């Protein structure tokens, strides 16, 4: 027993002392880093605002990790001429090349990911080739950072490799690539639309990421994506229908209103909710009847989106006001919530109070009282006037 005790005791003592020493060293190092960071912040602030700088001194500083961290922080927040000054400085110091070499040659994942993260801040077109190569890196985070960096550079050559990379990615990685594709904007639309229509033979035929591509197209909002989204709205894949319905709100023309109207009766509430929202963006009076019906939906989101859509469509407000005496309690609630959000209830109450109310305002306030929402009438006089 004693040898076991002695061994365990020794291990614990050594581990405890090592931890203590490590913490002390770390504490000192952090303080020293803070001290250097303060110096670098001062120097870089100076250099950002002028075109000449003491290159020799900067060469001595540039291998220091704290200097690079500080420089990257500056690049994150600076714009215009000041940013250009620091970028020029980085080029002269060979920092971008150093990170490119690191990204290409380092065997350590931490070095590669740090390098690619830094390259994303520099957004130097000279690093685009290395970043495109990094899209096949075995480490997820390196690929995602490379995708982000390419988006910052805005090199359209990256769109197809990013689409090719989609099928290899996890949900998280695919979402990050999706966010990246969004930042390419309209230049990415032809490739994305071909992908969404599954008619690009050179790309993987998997359909798993179609909803994501539909989402990206929806955010970019280019009308060239409308045929692909109309086709996707008929899909058996629920997620794809949801995304297609949402996308049609931004990419669709008036031609998509009938298809969106049909989607209001979809079996999945998410599709119905997105279709309602999309119809609101189209602002076409043909949608009023369907949206009015959707305010009775069993799902809160569908009711809310339908009410909001009605408020965006000309003559839709009348339908909303009509919803105040709907036989369905949830429809009445959706109407009143929307009217309140639009400020119409407050206006109606004020109008009734000061005696300038027309029939519409009186009706709104009367329905408020009927629905038991009298708490919005800050004094009883308005309801009394209505009753009177």
């Amino acid at each position, binding site marked *: 027993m004693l040898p076991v*005790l002695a061994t*365990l005791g020794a291990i614990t003592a050594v581990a405890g002392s090592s931890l203590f020493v490590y913490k002390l060293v770390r504490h000192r190092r952090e303080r020293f880093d803070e001290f250097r960071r303060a110096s670098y912040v001062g120097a870089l602030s100076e250099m950002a605002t002028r075109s000449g700088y003491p290159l020799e001194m900067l060469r001595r500083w540039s291998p220091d990790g704290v200097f690079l961290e500080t420089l990257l922080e500056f690049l994150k927040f600076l714009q215009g001429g000041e940013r250009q000054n620091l970028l020029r400085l980085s080029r002269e110091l060979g920092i971008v090349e150093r990170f490119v070499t690191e990204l290409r040659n380092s065997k350590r*994942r931490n070095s590669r990911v740090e390098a690619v993260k830094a390259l994303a801040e520099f957004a130097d077109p000279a690093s685009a080739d290395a970043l495109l190569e990094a899209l096949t890196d075995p480490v997820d985070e*390196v690929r995602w950072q490379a995708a982000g960096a390419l988006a910052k550079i805005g090199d359209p050559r990256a769109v197809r490799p990013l689409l090719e990379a989609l099928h290899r990615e996890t949900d998280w990685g695919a979402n990050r690539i999706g966010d990246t594709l969004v930042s390419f904007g309209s230049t990415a639309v032809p490739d994305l639309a071909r992908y969404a229509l599954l008619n690009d033979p050179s790309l993987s035929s998997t359909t798993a990421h179609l909803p994501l591509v539909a989402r990206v197209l929806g955010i970019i909002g280019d009308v060239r994506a409308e045929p692909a989204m109309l086709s996707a709205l008929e899909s058996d894949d629920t997620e794809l229908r949801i995304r297609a319905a949402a996308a049609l709100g931004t990419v669709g023309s008036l031609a998509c209103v009938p298809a969106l109207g049909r989607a209001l009766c979809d079996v999945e509430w998410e599709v119905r909710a997105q279709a309602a929202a999309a119809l609101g963006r189209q602002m076409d009076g043909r949608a009023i009847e369907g949206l009015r019906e959707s305010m009775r939906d069993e799902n809160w989101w569908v009711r809310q989106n339908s009410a909001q859509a009605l408020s965006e469509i000309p003559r839709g407000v009348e339908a909303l006001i009509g919803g105040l005496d709907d036989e369905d309690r949830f429809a009445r609630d959706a109407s009143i919530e929307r009217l309140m959000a639009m400020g119409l209830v407050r206006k109606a109450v004020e109008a009734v109070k000061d005696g300038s109310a027309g029939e519409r305002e009186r009706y709104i306030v009367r329905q408020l009282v009927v629905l038991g929402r009298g708490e919005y009438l800050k004094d009883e006089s308005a309801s009394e006037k209505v009753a009177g």
Partner: protein
Amino acid sequence: MSFIELFNYVILVYFIAMEVQLLFVSVVSFFALQRDQFTSKYGRLHDMLTSDTTPPVSIIIPAYNEAAGIAESVRSMAMLKYTRKEIIVVNDGSSDETVKRMIDEFRMEPIDVPFRPSLETEVILRVYKSRLPLPIVLVDKENGGKGDAINAGINIARYPYVMATDADMVLDDECLLRAVRHFVEDRARTIAVGGNVRPLNGCEVRRGRVTRVALPRRPVELAQVVEYIRGFLSARPGWSALGSLLLVSGAFGIFQKQAVVEVGGFRHGHLGEDMELTMRLHRHYRRKRIPYRIVYAPDAVAWTEVPLSSRVLRRQRMRWHRGLMQVIWQYKGMLFNPRYGIVGLLGWPAFVAFEFVAPIVEFVGWLVVPASVVLGFLNWEIAVPLFLISLVLGAGNSLIGLFLDERFGYYNAPGDAAKLLVYSLGEQLGMRQRTVWWRVRAMFWNPRRKSWGDMQRSGVGNLASEKGSS
């Protein structure tokens, strides 16, 4: 072989098994933490702030007599870095001015909100909504316990994910973002994510945020810091990586609403409602053979006030242990049952064997040793080193936790580092024995049940001012 010898061997085998298990889980935790930290640092987490794939979350704060700190707590939640969230405060029949405080601070006004209750709860008296441009809802209901209050919040919640937290929690800016990352990573399978809860005592809090992490002064608080580090960093990341995380803390846990509703929500009046729900989710999904994940997010940090005195700590620990006993009794059928996969065969048996049985074994040791001395059976040459070995191993376990905690870089000031080390060794004599005694007492003592702890809160704001003035 005499009975005493047999007893000694059984204890020795148990002892070795426990240490091997702790070491194994700690090693798994080490790799899990390493992986998690790498993704958290380089995984473009901040994209979530602008991405429309980030799911909205309803934050539910059950409140019972929380007037002292509720406003500060809600403000702190409102400032969390996240895209879409709503904050639902559920007043569970407080006898203090919790409701009035909420109404005054956030200009709450009653609304008539229609909802289809998916979970049964005590009567909801009134629902209020803030007139400020903040998504804050106050639910005033009759007293039904913490679980009932969270269920009421779930009924009102509009969003597909619900976060259950306590009113006295101080959350890190990005904790919600970091926790929800796990849902986005695997939306189809992830049903719950537990966060990392750390003691707030001793820290500096300004405007609802921890601005400086430091250790508290009282020994009873310090011992809890070591305990939390050990529990949340040595064990949970490992069990989570093994697919057998058995406790998503009710103090900071995020759940897929649909999953919680499907299993019937939090159990009313249960003393360990968070663990009970986690176990129920495991059982449900394993029985139905639906692929699922219950994950721990070590980088999603929330801070909580831990008891300041031994008296309150005793009550809290006894309540927890009775909760554990209730859960063990309810889910005994899962023990060593292959139907429940790794949970039934490894995680749950290990939890029962080393969380529930350990204090019994240690307590039996206390009885056997004096009896052996009296009867002259005790072999001092073996007993003393064995006792010392148990203390050294206990300290070793705490040290492992501290090593793992180095990833977060807290408590590096020389004074803090020394205090932590001294307490990780010192808690083995005194605190450990006290905890064992409380747990054993909890097994026999069954006082009037209280669903809510009666811990006195100083309130987040008060704590900050207390620190500031010291």
